């Protein structure tokens, strides 16, 4: 830079660090790049899975039982098993999680030390690795002296434990979004606090609760780690037909196929991934639809 002459800036009137200075433009380009990479990754992931799985995207995949021949094997019991496990998980986790959230959000005294501890504890549980819930359920099974771990209800229990904190947190957020005036109005008309919650607050929060619960269930649907510990990796030649029935799930079936060396099974795993992704997309779109369609803004 010249130090002797007082030079007039070439572009007078434009500050050195203006909105379109090279630095600022480079910064914005870098931000764009970050998002671009993330979106590109998703596109490539889906494209690669579809291209790889397309040869086995057929009726046999949905209708056949798994077997030694990668051209014939199918994921029928795994798909049905996933549905059984997720339905059982939902029945266990949603009522419990919603009840706990109502207590914490509507009735518990937030200044009480114990209640604050419960809150902190829920936050911590949400970050515990999934496989630890598998270990917890595994030792519960050992404690009960069950020799057969491969039961729908056992697998569903581990997944219910896994998503319970998520459901509590999202339900609390949904309840918090209901304005206090609605509660005050209801109480002023003579309703008891519980009547207020059941007839006013909870119905108003249902869209938020439904969205949060569906997203939590879709996480459970894609999770394999705890079920792996609970003997979920079996070859079934029958359809799961009850809470005590043996089962395997779609993610476990994908794990099993992808850990085999033959390329044919990788194709099969990719095709099963397409089924799983389609199920998850359907659940996520339902959640987004409920959120956009029914959620009230106050």
């Amino acid at each position, binding site marked *: 830079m010249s130090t002797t002459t007082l030079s007039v800036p070439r572009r007078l009137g434009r500050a050195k*660090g*203006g*909105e379109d200075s090279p630095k600022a433009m480079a*910064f*914005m380009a870098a*931000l764009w790049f*970050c*998002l671009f*990479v*993330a*979106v590109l990754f*998703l596109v*490539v992931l889906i494209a*690669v*899975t579809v291209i*790889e799985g397309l040869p086995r995207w057929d009726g046999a995949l949905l209708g056949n039982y798994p077997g030694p021949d990668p051209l014939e094997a199918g994921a029928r019991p795994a798909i049905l098993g996933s549905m059984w496990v997720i339905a059982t998980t939902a029945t266990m986790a949603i009522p419990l999680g919603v*009840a*706990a959230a109502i*207590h914490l959000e509507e*009735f518990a005294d937030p200044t009480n030390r114990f209640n604050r501890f*419960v809150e902190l*504890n829920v*936050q*911590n*549980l949400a*970050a*515990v*690795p*999934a*496989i*630890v*819930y598998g*270990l*917890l359920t*595994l*030792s*519960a099974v*050992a404690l009960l002296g069950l020799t057969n771990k491969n039961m729908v209800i056992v697998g569903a229990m581990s997944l219910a434990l896994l998503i319970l*904190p998520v459901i509590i947190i999202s339900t609390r957020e949904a309840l918090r979004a209901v304005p206090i005036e609605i509660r005050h109005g209801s109480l002023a008309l*003579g309703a*008891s606090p*519980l009547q207020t919650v059941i007839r006013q607050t909870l119905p108003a929060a249902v869209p938020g609760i439904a969205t949060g619960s569906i997203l939590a269930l879709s*996480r459970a*649907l*894609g*999770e*394999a780690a705890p079920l*792996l*510990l609970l*003997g979920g*990796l079996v070859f079934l030649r029958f359809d799961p037909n009850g809470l005590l029935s043996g089962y395997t799930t779609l*993610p476990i079936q994908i*794990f099993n196929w*992808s850990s085999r060396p033959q390329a044919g099974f*990788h194709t099969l795993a990719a095709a099963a*991934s397409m089924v*799983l992704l389609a199920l*998850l*997309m359907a659940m*996520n779109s339902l959640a987004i639809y409920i959120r956009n369609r029914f959620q009230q803004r106050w």
Partner: protein
Amino acid sequence: MSLPRSPEAATLDRVSAVIEPTESPAPVGRDFPAGFLAARSRPGETITLGLMKLSAWVSIAITIGIVVALLIPSIDFFRQVSVMDFLFGTRWAPRFANASFGVVPLVTATLWTTLIALCTAVPLGLGAAVYLAEYAPWRVRKLLKPILEILAGVPTVVYGLFALTFVQQTVLRDWLGFTTGAFSVLAAGLVMGVMIVPTVASVSEDAMSAVPNALRQGSAALGANRMQTTLRVVFPAALSGIVAAIILGVSRAVGETMIVAIAAGSQARIVGGPLEQGLTMTSFIANAALGDSRVGSLAYDTLFAVGLLLFVITLVVNAISIAFVRRFREAY
């Protein structure tokens, strides 16, 4: 049942109402019956409220359950293997005749995958968060946020398969020509990093959106452009939330199981470089679960000892994150 009624009506059926002694006596000089202001007893409600309270306590029971379930088999384990040998031993061979339980190889593999994942997730996640919070027009935001949610919703087995067949075999080996086997911690770590991007992005975006606009306007009024405002005003103000986001990413990376179980390999050696394969703590637990281990055997207890180490690590990491948010949160 909850129709508004006149004091007369209430007086009339006070016989049927359960009369409770009120804390505050009825106003002097007026003829209110005792218990007029007390709520009617509703046994059904009391039971429902009690059940809700119990459900909230279930979370405490789960925590206690986790601690007990991990501790009891671990104590059995540490009766046979000394804590020092476990924590600092460099050979992991639990199923060999000459068994050895040094957890260092598992820890190095976990460190490598976590480190690689963070090197991917932190820049990408923060960049995405800054763009969404500070730059993106409303329409773009509305489009991009669901895409990030989809990225967060992809099952980890699908990520694992992608890491194994595409990232490792096609990209690293065929396109880039790296000399590496069928598995590597690099492929697993990279894909895991992208998996964590939505977590890092959404938590740190929330933190940046919580910074009041007055600060941005003040900065702009002093002549700063958006980049300077972001880097010198918004970023420092949201630092606690951003650090919490990164730490949350760490705990997810340490605990992630399926990606590493599929793509990082299964040989328990000390990992010296990103192209080597390695067995992480989580993938050891997942792999060991495939071989059926009898309840009470050393192999069974080993699972819980490694699980305990994993749980303690994630607990410490979370505690740091929560403490960080509490201590350094700027209240506006």
